[in-house]
């Protein structure tokens, strides 16, 4: 340590290279707590050998890095949308609903439209909304129940059962045209017809969750194929109050308690209601489904008793999943472009929890 008086002189003399500093380092060494005369590397892990030979008692172990992540698991994974599907199936089964046989993508115009009292010149039957099949193009006329077909034809053309009908010329070839089904309501119609043929009417609760096809313009939220969820209850003297009641029960199991209903239009239900729920995150009412009571023109020609009403509701599987998971592009959820990391990271589906 130089006193301040010599500093200026030091600097001068150093500049003239007459002196150069020599640094001497010295250490004072004392024994620490871990002092040992043998060199030992700390172990990373406790091994089987150490247990066997007891050497674990004399070894030191490295600090474990608790801040790092654990090892990734090698596992198989189920697809997120199908996890949600499983939840919806469970809800229906819990409510005593029976699954309809929907493993039939190709339908004909008769069961997809005509049996539902949807007229033949309706926009939904257009080539730009429906996928028509070129091969096999038509269902053979003999495959339809002939007297039921006649009743459907008459109801469309002239009415009956209290209806004025549509006043047009119904053509069987339109009914024969094969299409990719646009809704699973085609299957509901088949089931209701079967039920109507039984000697005694028994009330039913039925559901389905399966693919439907629309030939529409595609965008971020619309694909040509998606999954439709449908619930149907047929019993004597059902009314809108029952429909509202069962919707509250169903959606409560999805954690949704606040519902609002809006008048809507479907060709085959009257009254029809759009179902809205309050989305706490978006702070607004969002449409979550469609519902209604099937028209008498659809049910009576099947042969169902006049006091039997059929209430039904439907929603898509993809939309609530996208809203819940914050996915904006449907192609991130279904199709080959899905990121498999997303599939693998997808949590347990708890539809009733926010």
């Amino acid at each position, binding site marked *: 340590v130089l006193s301040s008086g010599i500093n200026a002189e030091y600097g001068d003399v150093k500049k003239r290279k007459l002196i150069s500093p020599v640094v001497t380092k010295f250490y004072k060494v004392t024994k620490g707590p871990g002092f040992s005369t043998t060199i030992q590397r700390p172990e990373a892990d406790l091994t089987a050998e150490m247990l066997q030979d007891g050497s674990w008692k004399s070894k030191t172990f490295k600090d474990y890095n608790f801040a790092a992540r654990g090892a990734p698991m090698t596992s*198989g994974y189920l697809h997120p949308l199908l996890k949600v599907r499983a939840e919806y199936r469970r809800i229906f089964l819990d409510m005593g609903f029976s699954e309809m046989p929907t493993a039939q993508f190709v339908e004909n115009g008769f069961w997809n439209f005509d049996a539902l009292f949807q007229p033949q010149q309706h926009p939904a039957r257009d080539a730009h909304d429906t996928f028509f*099949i070129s091969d096999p193009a038509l*269902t053979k006329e003999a495959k339809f129940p002939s007297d039921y077909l006649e009743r459907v034809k008459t109801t469309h053309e002239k009415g009956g059962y*209290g209806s004025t009908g549509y006043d047009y010329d119904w053509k069987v070839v339109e009914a024969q045209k094969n299409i990719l089904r646009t809704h699973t309501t085609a299957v509901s119609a088949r089931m209701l017809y079967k039920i109507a043929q039984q000697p005694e009417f028994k009330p039913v609760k039925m559901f389905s969750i399966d693919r439907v096809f629309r030939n529409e313009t595609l965008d971020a939220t619309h694909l040509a194929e998606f999954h439709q969820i449908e619930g149907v209850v047929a019993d004597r003297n059902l009314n809108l*109050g029952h429909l509202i009641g*069962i919707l509250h029960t169903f959606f409560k199991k999805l954690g949704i308690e606040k519902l609002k209903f809006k008048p809507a239009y479907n060709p085959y239900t009257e009254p029809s209601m759009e179902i809205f729920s309050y989305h706490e995150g978006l702070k607004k009412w969002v449409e979550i489904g469609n519902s209604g009571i099937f028209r008498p023109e659809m049910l009576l020609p099947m042969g169902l008793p006049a006091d039997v009403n059929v209430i039904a509701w439907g929603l898509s599987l993809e939309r609530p999943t996208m809203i819940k998971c914050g996915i904006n592009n449907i192609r991130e959820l279904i199709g080959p472009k899905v990121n498999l990391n997303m599939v693998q990271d997808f949590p347990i589906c708890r539809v009733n929890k926010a």
Partner: protein
Amino acid sequence: MPTISVTRDVLYERLGKTFTDEDFEDECFDFGIELDDIVEENNVVKFKIDIPANRYDLLCVEGLSRAMNVFRDRMIVPKFTVVPGKEKLIVDDSVSGVRPYCVAAVLRDMKFTEESYNSFILLQDKLHQNIGRERSLVSIGTHDLDTIQGPFTYQALAPEQIKFQPLNQDSVMTAPEMFEKFRQTYLKPYLQIIEGKPLYPLITDANGVVLSLPPIINGEHSKITLDTKNVFIEVTACDRAKCRIVIDTICSMFSEYCSTPFTCESVTVESSSGSVQTPPMKYQTMECNAAQLCTKGGITGLTPDSVADHLTKMFLPSKAVGEQVTVEIGPTRHDVLHQCDVEEDLAIAYGYNNITEQVPNLNTIGAEQECNKLSDAIREELARAGFTEVLTFSLCSRDDISTSLRNGKALEEAVQIANPKSNEFQVVRTSLLPGILKTASCNRKMPLPLKLFEVSDVVFKSEDTETGSKNQRKICALFSGKTSGFEVVHGLLDRIMLSLSETNYSIRASEESMFFTGRGADILLGTEKIGHLGILHPEVLENFEISLPCSVLEMSLEPFV
């Protein structure tokens, strides 16, 4: 769902109230329409409102505001009257092969403003688009009656014989010349409705002046201007019911501007089947029991008088007599076909959200479809074996299931789509492989090995089903890594069979060109082939843009259900 554009301020003026956007949305909600968008065009605020597809009476601001005013008790339902008119329209049989139906009406002593004139045009556009199915089913022509002279003729003539000055054109043209010109314009899509037919429909007056060439274009001569007082409306169609609905809609909407509001004049339409007065503008009455009307809606506590009041609010003027209600269904409510339509309107007027909820007292036992139950169990097994599930599209290109998989025969058994918008929708898949291979290709960055599976339906043509086609539930698995993993998918097959309690299976070398030579096998259940497995041929990998070896397994689940 049709959307109409209305000027906000015009609408609010007609409603007699200025709403906030939120309040108006609420009003729309209860009424069953939706305010879809608010836009500004040339500094004028316009509402885009979604209208139910069966309510033709709400497709213009006149009808919409009238219905909302009646709903809000600001207005009484107007009574529409048809006054016998002197005009006559003769329908010649020649039109039966091209556009058989024609009706007409006269709106006498109208007063157009620019706003109402635009609304008049817009309504015709909407009706053309929707119920008219882009004019193919119904089209409308409106004319200045003072420029033409009856009786009018509706007939079909050879195209070259048709010669007139079309609307907004400077010269007279024949129909073929017009068509050539219109091919470059917005009229192009409508030409094919009649092009190629031997005779084209035409409406002319007593002096041979052409009113219109339906459904293409009107004549310049009779065009409507802001000064037009008397309007001649003709509607031609291929559907008689829609023809009536359209002319009733135009008359009921715009007769409010006649000097005697809500009155229109009839035209006598003569054809070989007789003589009728049009527009029909018919009134029907429905006699209903008041209590019965309430049952569908689950409504309680309404007297027959209240039921009648509620229905009147919905533009269905009604009167209660004892326990009965007489409902009047006018020419604006062509959507009412059955009592259930009236029941819905009653429930709407009562308010869906005022209905008391009841839970159906119905005990039933739930049940699953066996195929779905088994599929879910198998999916769990495959996931436990370390495979990741994919969910891919049922529709794909022809190549995807045939040439890309080196399987020329696949198309013979595939269901083909008639109207695909792109080649991605040409066929319904007969194999789950294209989907799983595309997924592997898109997920190149995943750590190896990649193990994927899907359990889903494919569709085959089938002689013994109603539609001629049949779904088949299949399992498909893929292994992709630095090595082919054949023994892994083979092991997976053994695991699947163990889960299905199946021991009567075997594999035998296969000749399929989809597999690498000597590395493909059929899966046999007893003696029947139910699937195959193997290492994919390098050409298949190239077709799907995969650069690593892949082994696949695909089999039907149906025999085990």
